[in-house]
């Protein structure tokens, strides 16, 4: 089945209008010797058989209690998000190139941009990027363009996956990336001071760090600006219900994963990345931006704007190659934020921290477990075990608990450390179970 409506009679009529004898004739421009040598695929099936197949595959994935993050978080999603983003006027539309019949998407994206600005305390947001990691890489390239310099100082406490994406994105450009090994789960300020000079385009940090540590980068911003570089900060959207926003710290460009805002885990995607900056850098931003204007009668309307930055106009001189972004996921983010509202987001953030602090105390009480130094945390924290973390996490996984992300693979010397994530969805009972099972894995 191919979801095509043509009857044999209609096909005959259409061929006659075209003036050819068969559909095969329409493929004559393709020389015989270039025809497909093989097309060995199974026969089709009904949607019911397909669903049965996918159900069988979904059943092969195990279900565990997740105390893991790594950039993706198990948060509540109000039912309205699925229902409203499921309106097919949104999800079966293309990029809003024709604004008169796309005001729904365009206004929603303008509202999304506003929400991201208000959340981060910055002035200009685009209409979304692919994910948090690629947003960080785009921010690096943006800083290179703005400053005309060629060196990036990248804090090792930034999500290691996201750092890997930055390295991949910049690999073929004349750019030097200097990674600073973290100290106590945070930026090594001393090491940074020695490296910050007039060749540096950006200092890139994360808040909270991959280890879970919360930072105030206000003084860092002043220091970075003195050298003429930009301060780029990755942020965790939900944490901004509580934490000081990057704009208030003097951060120039903030990026992050939008998954925590109303997007399902979905084995890693789709969700969205956001990027927001001081207004003065808007012309160097990547991707689509929606702007307000008026129609012929003076009524307010919205259009894609500043398109002279983009690939379909500027080609190889564009600020980025991005075309499709993650609009529908950004819409989900907006609906999520609107559903929770001003006070709801604060409560959500507080609930996360309350649960995490409770879990931190519970795990610290397990024999042999210590909390390494590193300052306050939000909903993730690092614990140190008396054993190799990989083995302990693997054994707890067998018992239905994903206890956290072992750090050894990403940070040499941290083989006994685990980052534990506790969102609002984890219950007191689950936290007690984690503590009990951890004790068992360590000592039985």
């Amino acid at each position: 089945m191919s979801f095509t409506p043509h009857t044999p009679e209609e096909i005959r009529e259409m061929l006659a209008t075209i003036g050819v004898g068969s559909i095969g004739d329409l493929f004559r421009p393709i020389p015989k010797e270039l025809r497909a040598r093989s097309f060995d695929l199974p026969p089709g099936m009904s949607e019911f058989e397909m669903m049965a197949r996918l159900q069988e595959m979904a059943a092969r994935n195990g279900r565990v209690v997740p105390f893991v993050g790594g950039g993706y978080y198990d948060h509540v999603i109000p039912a309205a998000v699925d229902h409203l983003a499921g309106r097919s006027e949104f999800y079966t539309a293309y990029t809003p190139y024709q604004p008169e019949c796309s005001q729904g998407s365009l206004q929603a994206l303008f509202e999304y941009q506003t929400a991201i600005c208000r959340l981060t305390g910055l002035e200009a947001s685009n209409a979304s990027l692919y994910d948090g990691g690629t947003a960080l890489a785009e921010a690096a390239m943006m800083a290179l363009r703005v400053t005309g310099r060629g060196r990036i100082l990248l804090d090792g406490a930034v999500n290691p996956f996201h750092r890997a994406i930055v390295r991949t994105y910049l690999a073929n450009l004349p750019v030097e990336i200097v990674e600073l090994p973290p100290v106590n789960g945070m930026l090594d300020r001393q090491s940074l001071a020695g490296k910050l000079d007039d060749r540096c385009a950006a200092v890139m940090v994360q808040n909270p760090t991959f280890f879970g540590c919360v930072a105030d980068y206000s003084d860092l911003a002043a220091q970075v600006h003195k050298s003429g570089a930009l301060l780029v900060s990755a942020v965790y959207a939900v944490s901004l219900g509580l934490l000081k926003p990057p704009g208030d710290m003097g951060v120039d460009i903030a990026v992050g994963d939008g998954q925590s805002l109303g997007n399902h885990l979905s084995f890693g995607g789709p969700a969205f990345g956001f990027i927001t900056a001081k207004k003065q850098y808007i012309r160097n931003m990547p991707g689509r931006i929606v702007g307000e204007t008026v129609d012929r009668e003076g009524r307010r309307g919205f259009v894609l704007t500043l398109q002279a930055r983009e690939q379909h106009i500027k080609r190889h001189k564009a600020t980025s190659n991005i075309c499709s972004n993650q609009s529908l996921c950004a819409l989900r983010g907006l609906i999520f934020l609107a559903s929770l509202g001003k006070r709801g987001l604060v409560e959500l953030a507080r609930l996360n921290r309350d649960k995490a602090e409770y879990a931190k105390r519970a795990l610290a009480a397990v024999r042999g477990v210590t909390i390494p130094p590193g300052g306050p945390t939000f909903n993730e924290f690092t614990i140190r075990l008396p054993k190799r973390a990989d083995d302990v996490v693997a054994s707890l996984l067998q018992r239905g608990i994903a206890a956290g992300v072992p750090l050894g693979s990403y940070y040499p010397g941290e083989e006994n450390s685990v980052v534990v994530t506790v969102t609002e969805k984890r219950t007191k009972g689950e936290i007690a179970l984690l503590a009990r099972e951890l004790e068992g894995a360590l000592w039985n």
Partner: protein
Amino acid sequence: MELIYEISVNGRRGVRLPASDVPAATPLPGEFLRAEPAGLPELSELDVVRHFTQLSRRNIGVDTTFYPLGSCTMKYNPKAMEEGARLFLPFHPMIALLPGGEALAQGTLAILHHMEEALEEITGMDAVTCQPLAGAHGEMTGIMLIAAYHKAKGNRKKYVIVPDSSHGTNPASAAMAGYQVVTIPTAPYGDMDLEAFKAALNGEVAAVMMTCPNTLGLFNPHIKEICDMAHGVDALVYYDGANLNAILGQLRPGDVGFDVVHVNLHKTFGTPHGSGGPGSGPVGVKKALIPFLPVPRVVRRKDGSFTLAADNPQSIGRMANFFGNFGVIARAYAYTLMLGREGLIEVSELAVLNANYVMSRLKDLYELPFDQTCMHECVFSASRQLQHDIHAIDIAKFLIDKGFHPPTVYFPMIVKEAIMIEPTETESKATLDAFIDAMREAAELAEKDPAALKRAPVTTPISRLDETKAAREQNVCFA
């Protein structure tokens, strides 16, 4: 219509969160806290539902309207695919990366692997990665693979050749991979000028990026010759899969000699475009490029189980947070299962039939710069209508009033006043006829009452917008 911030009411509440079952934590020190809550709206759930439902009614999509947007393949998005993808929503991607975690992700890893295998067969390539998150992201991945290949061989390469009819993402992706772009003009016969291509091809060329069929909707019969010539100077040939819908089951880029392809799952494989994303842009490569593919790779073990391999020293690294836009890939997998071999072949057959039908019924009224059998889309020029000061955009706006989403206009840039029509295979003759009637009416009005076209659209909530004002004022955030 009011913005969501304008309907906010101080103190109104929407969704309630679960009550806390743990004691409140000691507050964080003040320097870490935000001074005041973010300025989000305060609304009831019904306020939110009405607002977004009303917004949705100011949009059109494939489900409401014929959407012949050229180069975008706006085919019907079967509903069962949405249901299929829903089955995988709860799975956290980090679980698969934990020690021993692969065992808990065998279903999702299998889907990634099966989709990669299907795409290998469909494109004729040796290996596929589903990690790239959109078409342009796939292009960048592909060019980075090519760069890594040349670097490993010690080749000194500086240029990427791109035809002037290509999508803007091609040169932009090449530039992001550090290459200089050489643009080749289109010859009067509608394909990349072969002589100009030969003149530009030399040992410093890293890659040639081709769209096939090209953005004029035409099949380039010299495609194999171009591949062979490029290989002669150890340049690799890139296949932009934007137009794969035209050749499903008819031609495989790998058979012809292409070294790297990307596929737009949100075009050819029927996944919804979501008002501009999410997409998915898997990349297929020939054997010589396999060592450079992004990590982690999904690998099938001898016992049939799946694992993630990340220890590949030659890999270009990581292109995305995790394993790609899994939900989009799962939808495309569902699509492939439902259509099967015969269904996929039927896609290209009827997509090409529909495009040729529209072309033959409009070419008496609209200038057809390259008058030959087209593939899945046809490109007209509004140059005749321009005599009456009617531009492609005026015709586009008139079509909105007639109940259609307009075709792509002003692309490809090499056609003056371009109108690019891609009907796709899922549209019926009756729909095409109605669209053709509207296009014919527009051509007639251009002669008899051009002012009527200039007024359009008049049926939409707003009329034509002042784009200059938007760019000048840069009002991108509600104050």
